[in-house]
């Protein structure tokens, strides 16, 4: 691409967007440092047995969740790849995309509705155990929920690399008469091994920063992660010093993982809906066919189970009464408004960064990227290092220490944090279309002198409409289902739908919670489907 000597103001909104992201992060860290600096002893004394137990559990549950997702994920992906003629294949691949569209709190309730003390399987499990089924809480509950999210993700990502195996390799496999094991060892394993570090890192990161699942399904000091401990320290123990220590350890942990992931070339902004080709026919023996069939049936049941439970439990609730409650109306309205604002902000910030990055790339020509360009490229990914709870905790302490209205800030915090959290995904939706259009249009615009507002309106916006809508729907779904920031900042005055679900659960009104979760799940699912549909339609 040619170097263009044009005065270009596209970097200005990008600078502003970076400023917003930086303010959010710097403000949070300022709060933490302030608290730690004011009283070292408090933060230091938080290094106790409890803290080490929490840190150990955080790592342990993430390791187990990753192993339990990745290994079966490989088996399921291979079954899907080798049974390309199986009629239910498309259904399973689609179904495996659904968990990512569901908010964690909805899934947690689904797991409880299935395997909880009063769950659908409680009687069966009591009969098997010979004792009253205690319900799935603690580590096992957390693992089931994490694997529900991440096994399908792993399977889809591995399937993608298996489907990328060259057709000629598959032909050779058939011609040389390789059996199933040789084919795995010689042809499939190299493809899987290449994807393995990235997939494992992504899932490990998702599990180590998982908040809602652990909050809902974990229990007591033996099944608590750092993020949940931060929340408890701020909301229940009023112990900001401990929260600071916990937060710094969480930051350290995620930083190490992100650096490790970057070394491995892993992308942490996982794609919600990977496109999966129809696959290729592979000769499969009768025994293997049977094995694959069992694997796929188990995978299907494991993913479909909690989703069915969400619907069944939700329909059992007194939906008519819930629909009439003022608190429900308020929560729905609040959720929709905040999620809409967060999504709009996310798209605007992402567009600004994407176009600034491109403008800087054009300006420098063949020279290496400068700091500003790198920042606009990677700045949004930074937020992946800093989980929402951490940002929320920092601001919580900052506002409290500076005498600000902590709970009054709730709407702004929810919108800002959720907007920034969705940015890596939004930028991923927008950037390819933007840069592709730019590569085609840049020289024409320079020659025809199409600049500024006219350029935005006539040239840049039309091809970006669809990806921006995809990013918007995605960001809105993400924000709608989020329980991170609102758990910290929620109050009687500002309640979102996930917050209301949490409250009903805490008050043991499980049926209400299930009904509201169904509503929330349906909303997020529809938005994700809209995002998916928008991204697939041809321009």
């Amino acid at each position: 691409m040619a170097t263009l000597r044009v005065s270009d103001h596209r970097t200005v909104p990008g600078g502003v967007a970076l400023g917003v992201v930086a303010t959010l992060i710097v403000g949070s860290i300022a709060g933490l440092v302030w608290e730690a600096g004011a009283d070292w002893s408090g933060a230091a004394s938080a290094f106790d047995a409890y803290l080490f137990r929490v840190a150990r559990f955080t790592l342990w549950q993430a390791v187990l969740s990753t192993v339990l997702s990745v290994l079966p994920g490989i088996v399921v992906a291979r079954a899907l790849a080798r049974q390309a003629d199986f009629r239910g294949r498309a259904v399973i691949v689609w179904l495996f995309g659904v968990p990512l569209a569901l908010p964690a709190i909805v899934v947690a309730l689904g797991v409880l509705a299935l395997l909880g003390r009063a769950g659908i399987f409680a009687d069966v499990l009591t009969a098997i155990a010979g004792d009253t089924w205690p319900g799935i809480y603690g580590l096992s509950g957390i693992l089931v929920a994490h694997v529900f999210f991440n096994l399908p993700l792993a399977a889809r990502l591995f399937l993608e690399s298996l489907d990328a195996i060259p057709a000629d390799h598959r032909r050779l496999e058939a011609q040389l008469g390789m059996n199933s094991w040789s084919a795995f060892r010689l042809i499939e394993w190299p493809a899987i091994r290449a994807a393995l570090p990235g997939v494992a890192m992504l899932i490990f990161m998702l599990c180590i920063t998982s908040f809602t699942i652990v909050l809902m399904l974990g229990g007591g000091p033996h099944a608590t992660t750092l993020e949940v401990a931060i929340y408890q320290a701020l909301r229940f123990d009023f112990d900001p010093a401990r929260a600071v220590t916990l937060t710094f350890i969480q930051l350290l942990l995620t930083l190490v993982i992100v650096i490790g992931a970057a070394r491995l070339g892993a992308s942490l902004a996982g794609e919600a809906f990977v496109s999966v080709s129809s696959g290729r026919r592979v000769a499969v023996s009768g025994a293997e066919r049977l094995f694959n069939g069992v694997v796929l049936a188990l995978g299907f049941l494991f993913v479909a189970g909690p989703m069915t439970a969400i619907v069944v439990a939700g329909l059992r609730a007194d939906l008519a009464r819930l629909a009439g409650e003022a608190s429900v109306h308020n929560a729905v309205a609040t959720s929709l408004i905040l999620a809409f604002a967060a999504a709009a902000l996310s798209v605007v910030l992402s567009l600004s960064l994407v176009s600034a990055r491109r403008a800087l790339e054009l300006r420098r020509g063949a020279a290496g990227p400068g700091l500003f360009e790198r920042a606009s490229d990677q700045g949004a990914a930074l937020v992946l290092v800093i989980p929402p709870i951490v940002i929320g905790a920092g601001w919580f302490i900052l506002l409290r220490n500076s005498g600000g209205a902590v709970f009054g800030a709730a709407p702004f915090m929810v919108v800002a944090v959720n907007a920034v959290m969705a940015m890596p995904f939004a930028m991923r939706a927008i950037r390819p279309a933007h840069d592709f259009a730019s590569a085609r249009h840049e020289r024409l615009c320079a020659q025809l002198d199409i600049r500024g507002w006219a350029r935005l309106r006539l040239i840049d916006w039309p091809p970006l409409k669809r990806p921006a809508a995809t990013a918007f729907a995605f960001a809105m779904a993400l924000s709608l289902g989020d329980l991170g920031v609102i758990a910290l900042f929620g109050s009687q005055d500002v309640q979102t739908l996930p917050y209301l679900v949490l409250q009903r659960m805490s008050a043991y009104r499980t049926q209400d919670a299930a009904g509201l979760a169904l509503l929330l799940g349906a909303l997020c699912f529809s938005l994700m489907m809209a995002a998916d549909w928008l991204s697939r339609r041809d321009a």
Partner: protein
Amino acid sequence: MSGAAIKCRDVRFSRAEMEFSFDFAAAASDVVAVMGPSGSGKSTLLDLIAGFETPNGGAILIGEEDVTVRPPARRPVSMVFQENNLFGHLDVFSNVALGRSPSLRLDDEDRADVHEAIERVGLSGKDKRLSPALSGGERQRVALARVLVRDRPVLLLDEPFASLGPALRAEMLELVRDLHAERGMTILMATHNPDDAEKLAGHMLYIEAGRVAEKGPASVFFGPDGPEAFRRYIGSKTGR
């Protein structure tokens, strides 16, 4: 509007470890074919004149004006690329009209000019079409219509017909020749095809390894005494 002379005085440029150095002059209203192997610098030369690249040294003059460091839009130049001449989401009319107003603010006279240009390149009735609904030849016609409404004294053609079949290509060359006869703009045309050059060009530039290796009248180039390097390039053993 008539053409303007182009002068490249010791224009130097480097990219990706390749050094370019161009020195030549083209008379007003001449048609100059730029030929040479792939990667020799034909497109780079056109990019420098159009302003998409800025030289490290030397001067580019169009008419009497030094345009060396001027942005593309402020040079008296229109350029037609091999592809991507059109905005895919805009119709034919808008694509042409952008040559008159970059914000599409048009008065009645502008609109009439745009319609006339579309008619002139043989696309009457197709002004509402989007570029995916056009053939490769039609897209390049739209680009030429925009050249007409821009009405600049220099036209740069960067292998614009390279992807067209022989018959279409001949038609498009015919159109360019007619437009040149009407408007008299100076044309610099990069091409791989000796026929294009022979049909259209008054003069030739033969570019090799980033510099002008040979220049002269087209009749000499294609005659029995054409430069050796050029004859080797087009693969003629003796003169034709």
